[in-house]
């Protein structure tokens, strides 16, 4: 992709592909086989430890009428919209800051990206303690600001926004890194002329920076959407989908069906619907990216 001609390498394409055979063999075993096997399982009524029976698309028909599943789609989309938009906004602001030169920038950037490298289970444990309605540090901080205490993850109304808060804390750094990459590759000429024209910082951001980083923001949106849809560890540790089923996302529902109820066939059908949903949303965002590129 570096543009230069490759007379020597070009004729060897099939030979170069042989380098990938061992990796392809492993990929076939641990990635492609599970996909194929999932499709097979989804067509069966299959509980672990019991006889399996071919039922065609019955699992999918049952899903369409399963209220708990339909609700979990709603929870997932609610969580995803917030967990994509907020990191995009905050991450862009942080990238603008880290794009400036200042002392100890490397150290501060390293600290800023610590959350995304931290072990999700550890992060979730700390947030669980911070959310505690009586003893948690968050309610103490709210009281210092003169705000009423919240129930956080202990109330069906606030559980999803609270989980979003953890997700935003956890994954805003990834958005920042992607946008920072975009800022680094931006040309300097438009900024120089804007300076001469006396544009305000907001005008510069709105009319120069934002269009320049738009493709990067859309990439970040795609990655964030995929990851938010798939969010599992922190939700599983902090709320287990509760209270009741108030924060049960598709992934949590899937886990329960598979590894609490051992409904393997039904869970496989959920997997396929879930995967299709992820692909559709990713495609929509990629299509937006293409549009942004050409206009």
């Amino acid at each position, binding site marked *: 992709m*570096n543009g230069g001609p490759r007379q*020597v*390498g070009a004729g060897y*394409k099939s*030979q170069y*592909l*042989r380098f*990938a055979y*061992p*990796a*392809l063999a*492993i*990929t076939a075993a*641990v*990635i492609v086989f*599970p*996909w194929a*096997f999932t499709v097979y*399982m989804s067509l069966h009524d299959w509980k672990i430890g019991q006889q399996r029976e071919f039922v065609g698309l019955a699992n999918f028909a049952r899903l369409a009428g399963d209220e708990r599943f339909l609700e979990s789609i709603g929870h997932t989309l609610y969580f995803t919209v917030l967990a994509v938009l907020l990191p995009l906004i905050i991450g862009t602001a942080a990238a603008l800051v880290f794009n*400036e030169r200042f002392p100890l920038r490397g*150290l501060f*950037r390293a600290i*800023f*990206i*610590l959350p995304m*490298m*931290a*072990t*999700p*289970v*550890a*992060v979730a*444990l*700390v947030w669980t303690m911070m959310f505690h309605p009586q*003893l948690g*540090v968050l309610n*103490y901080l709210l009281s210092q600001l003169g705000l009423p205490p919240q129930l956080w993850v202990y109330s069906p109304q606030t559980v999803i926004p609270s989980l979003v808060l953890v997700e935003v804390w956890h994954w805003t750094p*990834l958005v920042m*890194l*992607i946008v*920072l*990459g*975009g800022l680094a590759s931006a040309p300097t000429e438009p900024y120089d002329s804007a300076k001469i024209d006396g544009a305000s910082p907001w005008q510069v951001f709105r009319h120069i920076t934002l269009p320049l980083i738009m493709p990067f923001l859309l*990439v970040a949106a795609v*990655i964030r959407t*995929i990851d938010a*849809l798939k969010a*599992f*560890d922190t939700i*599983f*540790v902090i709320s287990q989908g509760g209270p009741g089923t108030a924060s049960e996302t598709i*992934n949590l529902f*899937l886990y329960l069906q*598979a*590894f609490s109820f051992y409904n393997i066939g039904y*869970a*496989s059908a959920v*997997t396929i619907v879930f*995967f299709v949903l*992820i692909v559709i949303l990713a495609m929509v965002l990629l299509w937006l990216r293409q549009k942004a590129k050409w206009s």
Partner: protein
Amino acid sequence: MVVTAARMRKLAGRLAFGFSVFVIVSPAILVMLWMLSLSLKTEVDNMSFPPVFVPSPPTLANFLDVFEKNRIETYFLNSVIVSGLATLVAIAVGVPAAYGIAKAQAHKLAMLTLIARITPALSYLIPLFILFQWIGLTGTIWPIVVTHLVITLPIFIYVMIGFFEGLPQELEEAALIDGCTLWQAFRYVALPLARPGIVVGAILSIIFSWNNFVFGAVLGGRQTRTLPVAVFNMLTFEQVSWGPLAAAALLVTLPVLLLTLLIQKEIVGGLTAGGVKGA
């Protein structure tokens, strides 16, 4: 007077900028410090409201408690074995694969690693869980190592494809003209140049494999669970005693945080390459 006014404005601007840096990094710092604070305080201090922020005096009792009541060493070793083996396999097959894919410009194969990233982890887990039951391997550490390849291999190959595409072509071309085989050109020319990329790719796959929870949670037995799973079990089975929980959380994530701080520049480079090329 005009000069001083301008100077004042510049100073105010700098202060505002410094403040925004502070605001941006403080959530990360505060949560980490709170974890540290909880782990170093007595249970009485941890259960008091308003909260005690600075442990006085700090105590290591929570850490001792964690080591006494749990076989942390075993779980630590399990995590090292799982992340280490899964990353070693990823390096062994991933370096040549990424080289081949970059050279042949096989974008469809590169797409495969992307699709692997899109797929929810649970959709690998269900079929592999059944498979390992049939083979009779459940309870051993091998299923966990194998499923962690789902994490390490795509990350590693992804970082390496980007790295190989960025390497200059001339040296290998000269080697080929001099009569080297493709394998020799790879082994003696490209591979030594790729070492920094291998380090970054390996560290990223170790970290993401170390952090993984769900594979170990489902496939791990009493003896074979990984560190994050062991810490999660403390939450459910020992009931809430905040000090030891925070100490355990810190023990799990500290190696990763230190690694990140030590080689932040390389990690940022690797993540940016992977992220930006991620779609």
